[in-house]
């Protein structure tokens, strides 16, 4: 436990926070949650025992890693779709074509059918490739939005 003096001296700047955490970590791992009042004020401050709180960019990086993992998993099921870096810098696209999965969905929206899209890009794209891209998009969406 922290002494009353330690609590009084505590302020919310980073150095104090780190020293408090260093102190608490010496009592065991993981460190306990500690709280006290900021000197000269009534606001009660709680310091979480975990020494490192993820910031926004860390959360974003973790989200990107998760999305990347999901994409790689879905690619295994849909070999006609690729995330190679050369084309669109790794955005999911039809294998060896400058046609992203987003483009495929956009074209289906505009042209109304898979056959119409395949005809539009013929002879470079087949109907099967378009279907694979749609199935891939569905899989990614379902896995990403799965709350469990």
């Amino acid at each position, binding site marked *: 436990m922290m002494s009353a003096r330690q609590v009084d001296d505590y302020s919310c700047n980073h150095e104090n926070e780190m020293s408090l955490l260093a102190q608490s970590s010496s009592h065991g791992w993981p460190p306990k949650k500690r709280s006290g009042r900021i000197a000269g004020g009534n606001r009660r401050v709680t310091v979480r025992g975990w020494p490192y709180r993820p910031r926004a960019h860390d959360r974003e990086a973790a989200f990107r890693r998760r999305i990347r993992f999901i994409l790689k998993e879905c690619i295994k099921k849909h070999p006609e779709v690729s995330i190679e870096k050369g084309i669109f*810098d790794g955005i999911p696209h039809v294998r060896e074509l400058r046609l992203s999965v987003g483009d495929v969905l956009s074209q289906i929206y505009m042209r109304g059918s898979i056959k119409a899209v395949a005809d539009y890009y013929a002879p*470079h794209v087949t109907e099967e490739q378009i279907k694979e891209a749609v199935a891939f998009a569905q899989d990614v969406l379902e896995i990403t939005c799965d709350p469990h």
Partner: protein
Amino acid sequence: MTHIKLVVDFNLGPDHVDKLNELGAIKAKTTIEYGFNPWTGDDDLVRATLDEGCILLTRDRNTINERIYKPCTHGGVIIIENPHPFPETVFSYVKAFCQSGKRSLAEHCVTHLYEDKAIIHTHRGSETVQF
């Protein structure tokens, strides 16, 4: 009248080329007609615009942008900022840009083309052209 040579990205397709050629001030061709493969990488395509003396028209704003391709390292890139680029939509965007009097700025620069404006990233920073 000076013609703008446009190379239309594979994902936009031939309908856009036909529609754009109706404009008169534009000579548009697809990447296939320019001799590129459908699987040509972003970098190869953008660098080739310098040799061909043309401007790339694409929808790919994630990987082809002003942060990656600085002014004068390529022939020019026009990015259509619309998730559903119908040929008529692209035609109206490009037509408005051509009539704005600033189309010459698009050469060797990255231009983002919206419904009502164009943002051109030049050496002197970004310039917004309202239609």
